[in-house]
């Protein structure tokens, strides 16, 4: 009697469809990564195109690609353009520098990649000329830039050269108006939309319920003339010389780390800033200024690698602003696993050693190729 009863695992993998229906995976072999793949596919299929109307007007978002990808601020600027565009307006993205990103997901209808205008080479005259060529060809109603060094510099050069109206440090945006913070009264000051808009970070939510067409088109070739500026090259400061709050990649040790020599070697190889949990600091392995958490520092790194950290709520408070959290921990039930984008359940020492070996191997391969 009992042998014939079909027993189902109540915790089997499932997926909540956009319609709200829970879909159970029947295959007993379904793994987490398959589930994630299916989820992205369903999500992609569920998102409609923003507009299917023939474009009569356009908006232009100008962003730099960073290491071949677009960061949050750049995506927010594209999202801003798509959110204030109407059905007959197409959103054009001018990407300065190469990028392999999925621009459709960012909401772009047309993508123009200007490979020779990337952040690697400082040639502002050429970049302004390229933007002028885009202005002449597409006649966008408004241009959107992120308010940060590279793009803001370019936007201000363009505004000074063409005398187009410009608003900087914009914190609020709508179809008709924009607002900036008046630093004297701390109130918002509003005006009608300007031709050039420099958006402050986090003025826009980059999550969109639609996708763009992301047609790739090329720009008119602009001859690269001589520059008054001579670029003497970029230098990157080592992470150890940066304060923890400004670091791009932070690697932190907790109670699960016993081999600190290995840990420091890994931090050096990854060029990551070193942080620590309260337990590791109290044990005297790190100085107090390395502590991350409620009583220590609050960081906003792009990448956070937590090694042997269980993730007490005070610690999680300190990593609130981190974009990608990766945890290495022996305990799959630890709180950090809930927070982590990628959680590896393994011994910290063994995994650190394996990671160092993998890094060395890839470096050797690069040297052989060169």
């Amino acid at each position, binding site marked *: 009697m009992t042998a014939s009863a079909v027993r189902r695992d109540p915790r089997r993998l499932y997926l909540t469809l956009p319609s709200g229906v829970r879909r159970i995976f029947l295959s007993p072999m379904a793994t987490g990564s398959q*589930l994630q793949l299916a989820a992205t596919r369903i999500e992609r299929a569920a998102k409609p195109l923003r507009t299917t109307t023939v474009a009569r007007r356009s908006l232009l978002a100008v962003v730099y690609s960073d290491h071949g990808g677009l960061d949050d601020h750049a995506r927010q600027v594209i999202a801003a353009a798509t959110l204030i565009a109407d059905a007959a307006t197409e959103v054009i993205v001018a990407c300065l520098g190469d990028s392999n990103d999925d621009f459709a997901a960012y909401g772009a209808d047309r993508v123009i990649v200007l490979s020779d205008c990337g952040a690697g080479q400082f040639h502002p005259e050429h970049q302004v000329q390229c933007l002028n060529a885009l202005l002449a060809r597409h006649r966008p109603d408004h241009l959107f830039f992120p308010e940060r060094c590279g793009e803001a510099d370019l936007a201000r050069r363009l505004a000074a050269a063409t005398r187009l109206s410009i608003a900087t440090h914009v914190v609020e945006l709508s179809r008709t108006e924009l607002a900036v913070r008046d630093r004297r009264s701390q109130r918002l000051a509003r005006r009608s939309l300007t031709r050039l808009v420099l958006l402050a970070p986090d003025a826009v939510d980059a999550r969109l319920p639609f996708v763009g067409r992301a047609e790739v088109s090329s720009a008119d070739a602009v001859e690269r003339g001589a520059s008054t500026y001579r670029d003497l090259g970029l230098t990157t400061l080592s992470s150890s010389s940066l304060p923890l709050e400004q670091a791009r990649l932070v690697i932190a040790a907790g109670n699960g780390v016993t081999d600190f020599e290995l840990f420091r070697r890994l931090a050096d190889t990854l060029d990551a800033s070193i942080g620590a949990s309260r337990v590791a600091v109290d044990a005297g392995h790190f100085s107090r200024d390395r502590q991350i958490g409620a009583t220590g520092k609050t960081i906003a790194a792009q990448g956070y690698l937590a090694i042997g950290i269980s993730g007490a709520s005070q610690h999680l408070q300190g990593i609130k602003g981190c974009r990608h959290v990766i945890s290495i921990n022996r305990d799959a039930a630890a709180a950090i696993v809930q927070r982590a984008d990628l959680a590896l359940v393994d011994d910290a020492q063994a995994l650190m050693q394996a990671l160092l070996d993998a890094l060395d191997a890839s470096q050797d391969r690069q040297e052989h190729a060169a």
Partner: protein
Amino acid sequence: MMSLTDPEQPAKIAVLLSTRRHPVSALPVPHPNDVIALALGLRLSKLPPRVVHAGDPRDAALGDYLAFGAATVEVLPVEPDDDYPVMLARHLRDVDLAICGQRAHNGSGMLPYRLAALLDRPVLGDVLDVQAGDGKITATQRLTASQRRKVELPLRSVIAIHPQAAVSSRYIYASRIAGRIVTMHSDSLQECPKHEVEQWRLDPTERSAVVLRAPDRRSGHERMLSATAPAAGAGRVITEGTTAAKAQLLLSYLREHHLIDN
């Protein structure tokens, strides 16, 4: 050839200053970014640099700039609707290098760019440090927290100094007493063009900015589901596989999200 080290024909440097109100006391105080720009200007030239302010000559903050090392502050009296970059450009035509702060207290940061366009000179912003050479300057620009770029540009240019530039300055009361504030009057300054009046309207009360987000058109049921159900694909937990495979996965994750370079 003009040189900063040549005593016969020293380079003419001008520092542009703005003032601001203290956020708590509302007293006129010097702008910290401009204090840094002034210190850099003083360090660069043997001659005292020309120090220029466009605004009210009676502004009490100008005295503090004298204490920070300006021998004379030249003030161009301007009205609020004057297009003052035009006046500054006329005033600074025979100056070699113009230095200013990145952004005035309530400003847009457009002044160095406007000035450079009017004077037809190169301009560089976010400058942390300047080294002067033979008719050329080498500036270190701050790109991100960890990235710096060195750029060589002609001496006749406009540079905007980043607030984090590491230059120290001292407040000396004696130089405040010794210094002078001079109001400039000349015919060329009389007919200043008026710029388009920007229609800025202040909100009646102080409030936080509203984030622009896509309208949520889902039904109540869908919203409740998304609030209660864990987001699909929020995080991956890897328990199986060898340690080496996990390390490889971690490495590819770091590479995929551009967190490491190699």
